[in-house]
């Protein structure tokens, strides 16, 4: 049973549109992450947050931005979508303190035409 929710599951939009991918978790986790994944390929970290008002860029350069105003919510925004942004975007969270696995949502599959 997923405790981390991503919406929409699928999104097809035209070039130049602004979009926001939603991610919410009900586990009270301080740490949240966004990964980008092409089909069957490895995951690449694009943004992460260690708590409210904390956001950092990941290892993979991305034109997206994130915000963390509430603990449970970590939306990702693309100001002007391009075909190169077509991918799957996975949100994850983990608790603070010690080593612990990330809990993933089921992702948003984005297609930019």
């Amino acid at each position, binding site marked *: 049973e997923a405790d981390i929710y991503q919406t929409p599951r699928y999104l097809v939009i035209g070039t130049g549109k602004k979009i926001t991918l939603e991610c919410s978790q009900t586990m009270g986790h301080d740490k949240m992450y966004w990964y980008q994944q092409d089909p069957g*390929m*490895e995951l690449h970290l694009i943004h992460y947050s260690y708590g409210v008002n904390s956001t950092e860029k990941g*290892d993979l350069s991305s034109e997206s931005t994130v915000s963390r105003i509430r603990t449970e919510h970590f939306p990702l925004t693309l100001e002007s979508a391009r075909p190169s942004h077509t991918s799957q975007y*996975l949100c994850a969270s983990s608790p603070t303190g010690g*080593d612990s696995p990330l809990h*993933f949502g*089921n992702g948003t599959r984005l297609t930019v035409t």
Partner: protein
Amino acid sequence: GESVGLHLPTLSVQEGDNSIINCAYSNSASDYFIWYKQESGKGPQFIIDIRSNMDKRQGQRVTVLLNKTVKHLSLQIAATQPGDSAVYFCAENSGAQKLVFGQGTRLTINP
């Protein structure tokens, strides 16, 4: 830079057989490793983890082995079932709670 990779992109086994999925990592300072299972259309699902002070850890039908000398990680799945068909990723903690993922191995269970 640091990276985590898998030796084989695909693996097919007969139902009921055991399977072994391998992973090589390059960051000798990594101290925490995780195996994930990803089914089609879903996010990665945690299977088992291991810390660097251990060389073996067992779960239900799964065992993870860690060889720090050669920087090698493996996942053994016993008595495979059709539901085990998925892509399996290893991941290492590269520091600051950021996980680095390998390329994934697609496991197919043949009836």
